[in-house]
C-alpha cells in the first residue's frame, strides 16, 4: 500500500498533465504556411545573413509574406532562386554568382605605417584611432574583422592583408558590411583582372603611402584594347562586362596594382 499510493499520485499527475498538454496542443495549434519548410529546403542553409534576414528561415518567412524577392540568396545562386520561384509560382530572376574581393594591395612590406598599433585585435577599434596604423586611409587594416564574420572561413589574413579564397566564398556579402574601411567589394565570379586598390588620393600621395597603390596615371585605360577601363577620381575602374582578361593592363601598370586573381 505504501508503494502503490505514491505511485498512483505521481502517475496520476503525469496522466493529468499529459492530457492538459495534449489538449493545449490542439487549442493553441498555430497554422504555419506549408511553403516555408519547402523554401528552407531550397536554400543552402548556411544562415549567413547575406540576404538581410535572420538566417534562412527568416528569409523564407519574408518571402512568404511578400516582403522579399526570390533572388536575394547569393550562396544559393540561380539554382535556389529558381526552386523558390517554382514554389511561389512566379518567374525566376537570373542571379550572377558573386565573390568578395579585397581592393587593396597594402601588405605590411608594401604599405607605409604611421604608428605601431597595440590595441585590440579588431579593425573597428584600430579604425577609431585616427583611421588605423597604415598611412593610406583607404588601406585594409588586416586585423581580421572580416575573418571572424565570414560564415564559410573563406577569408584569411596574410602579411597584414585580407585574402579571399574565391572557391570557398559564397558571395553572401557579410564581410562587405563588416569592414570599417569598405575595402571589400563583391565582384562577378568570372572577373579575373581586378584593380587591387580603392584609394581616391592623388598620385603623389598614393606613392608616399604605398608602393603598389593606383596612382591614377591612366596608362591602363589608354592601352586597353576593349576600352573596358575608365579613370574615376584618380582610380582605374574595370568594366567586368567588357573585360576580356587579356592581361595587357596587368603588364603595363607601372605600380603593379592591377592583377589577375
Amino acid at each position, binding site marked *: 500500500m505504501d508503494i502503490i499510493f*505514491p505511485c498512483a499520485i505521481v502517475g496520476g499527475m*503525469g496522466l493529468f498533465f499529459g492530457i*492538459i498538454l495534449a489538449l*493545449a496542443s490542439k487549442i*493553441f495549434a*498555430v497554422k504555419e504556411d506549408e511553403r516555408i519548410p519547402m523554401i528552407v529546403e531550397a536554400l543552402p542553409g548556411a544562415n549567413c545573413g547575406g540576404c538581410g534576414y535572420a538566417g534562412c528561415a527568416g528569409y523564407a518567412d519574408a518571402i512568404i509574406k511578400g516582403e522579399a524577392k526570390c533572388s536575394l540568396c547569393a550562396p544559393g545562386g540561380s539554382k535556389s532562386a529558381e526552386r523558390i520561384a517554382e514554389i511561389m509560382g512566379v518567374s525566376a530572376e537570373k542571379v550572377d554568382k558573386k565573390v568578395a574581393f579585397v581592393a587593396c594591395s597594402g601588405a605590411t612590406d608594401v604599405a607605409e605605417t604611421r604608428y605601431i598599433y597595440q590595441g*585590440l*585585435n*579588431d579593425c573597428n577599434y584600430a579604425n577609431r584611432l585616427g583611421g588605423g596604423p597604415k598611412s593610406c586611409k583607404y588601406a585594409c587594416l588586416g586585423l581580421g574583422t572580416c575573418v571572424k564574420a565570414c560564415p564559410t572561413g573563406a577569408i584569411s589574413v596574410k602579411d597584414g592583408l585580407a585574402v579571399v579564397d574565391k572557391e570557398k566564398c559564397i558571395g553572401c556579402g557579410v564581410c562587405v558590411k563588416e569592414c570599417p574601411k569598405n575595402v571589400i567589394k563583391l565582384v562577378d565570379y568570372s572577373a579575373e583582372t581586378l584593380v587591387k586598390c580603392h584609394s581616391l588620393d592623388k598620385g603623389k600621395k598614393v606613392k608616399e603611402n604605398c608602393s603598389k597603390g593606383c596612382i591614377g596615371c591612366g596608362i591602363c585605360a589608354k592601352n586597353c584594347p576593349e576600352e573596358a577601363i575608365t579613370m574615376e577620381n584618380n582610380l582605374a575602374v574595370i568594366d567586368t562586362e567588357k573585360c576580356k582578361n587579356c592581361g595587357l593592363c596587368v603588364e603595363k601598370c607601372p605600380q603593379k596594382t592591377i592583377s589577375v586573381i
Partner: protein
Amino acid sequence: MLLTRLLMISLGAIFAENFVLVKFLGICPFLGVSKKTETAFGMGFAVVFVMVCASALTWLVNQLLVLCNIEYLQTIAFILVIAVLVQFVEMFLRKNIPPLYNSLGIYLPLITTNCAVLGVAILNITKFADSTTSFLDSVVYGGAAGLGFTLAIILFAGVRERLENADIPEFLKGMPIVLITASLLSIAFMGFSGMSF
C-alpha cells in the same frame, strides 16, 4: 512590515544569494547563452518569467504533497510540473502573444530542466516553511532569483563581448578564459555577503 520583508528577500536573492554566482545553479545557460548581450537579455527574462510561474505552481503542488504525506517525492513532482509548465507556456505564447514568443520562444525549451528553476522551487519550500505568507514569499523570491540570474548573465555577456577582441594567450583561449572570468565575477558577488564566515 511585510513590504520590508519582501524587499529583504528580493535584495538577498539578487545580490548576496545570487543563483549563478554565489549558489552556482544554472551554470549551463550562464556559460552557453552569454556570447552576446542581446541573447543574454532574452535568456534572462525567460528565466524570470519561468521562475515566477514555477514558484507559484510548485507551491500549490507542495501543498498537495504535504496533504498526501509524500514530501519525499518533491524532486520528481517538481521536475514534472516545471517541464509541463514550460511546454504549456510556450504553446500559449506562440498562439496568443507572438511578439513575446519570438523574443523568448527559443530560450524557453532550454530552461525546461534548468537546475536554477528546480533550485528555486525546492529552496522556496525549505526557506519559507514557517512563514505565514509563504506563497507571496515564494513568488517574490522566484522573481528576484530570476532577476539575479539576468543581472549576472548580462554582466558576463558584456565582459565576454570585450574578450572576443582581446589578445588572449593561446593556452587560455576559449573556455579557460571564460571560466576564469566567471570565477572573478563570482568572487565579486561573494563580497555582498560580507567577509565574516
